[in-house]
């Protein structure tokens, strides 16, 4: 709304033009969501079934091939979905130069956490 500007309304509305992408991000959010439906339900059910159990019981469950593969898949889908989702939230509300930095930071954190989680699972599974 700068009254000193001679830019035409159309020039403002066009901005820098179309990025000609965005569908990949949108689709990936859906694909990870679909993967997360069975994975998270399985995870929550497994935790409920082991409510109140001790360390050895928990670790011996986690080190079964089925559970460790499931957990690794869960972590990958979960953090990919989280990174994509939080990126949208930041793009919605952050309107300064911090936007780009925040998106990068979110992605690094998410993929970093996913790797930490996967290594921990492998550690438990193979008794490191």
């Amino acid at each position, binding site marked *: *709304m700068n009254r000193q500007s*001679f830019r035409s309304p159309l020039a403002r509305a066009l901005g820098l033009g179309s990025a000609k992408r965005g569908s990949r991000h949108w689709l990936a959010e859906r694909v990870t969501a679909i993967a*997360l439906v069975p994975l998270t339900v399985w995870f929550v059910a497994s935790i409920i079934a082991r*409510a109140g159990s001790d360390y050895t019981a928990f670790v011996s469950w986690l080190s079964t091939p089925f559970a460790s593969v499931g957990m690794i898949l869960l972590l990958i889908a979960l953090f990919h979905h989280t990174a994509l*989702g939080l990126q949208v939230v930041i793009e919605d509300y952050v309107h300064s130069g911090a936007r780009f930095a925040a998106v990068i930071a979110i992605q690094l954190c998410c993929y970093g956490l996913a790797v*930490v989680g996967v290594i921990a699972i492998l550690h438990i599974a193979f008794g490191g």
Partner: protein
Amino acid sequence: MDAKPPPLGKKAPRPRPLSPNIQIYRPQLTSVLSIANRATGVLLSLAAIGLVIWISAAAAGPEPYAVIQRALVSWAGQVVLFGVTFSFFLHLCGGIRHLVWDTVHGFELRSIYISGWSVVAASAVLTATAWAAGLFVAGSR
């Protein structure tokens, strides 16, 4: 908008005011559930960090794991866990509603409202069931 700059030496006129948006717009099931989906998503992101800490503690050995377990069974830990469970089910049901919309189904206003209230009811029921089951299993151990 305003192609003409103010005449030299004159103060620029005040900018046009922006009419109120979120300050006056009526909360509706549509917008409230959208905000809820987003808020629970952000909360679950934090819970995901907790998940990694929890697994890492288990990998690190019985003592670190016991510390996390103690925090989880504490009064505050249980409240947080309950909030996370409800957020999870709300985000899950809301997410499924979104996936159905993405196939261009269920866009009639009536369907939008029915699916919306169903999401609210289903997440409440699922949360209650999950906690009842969890407490039962823990109690019978």
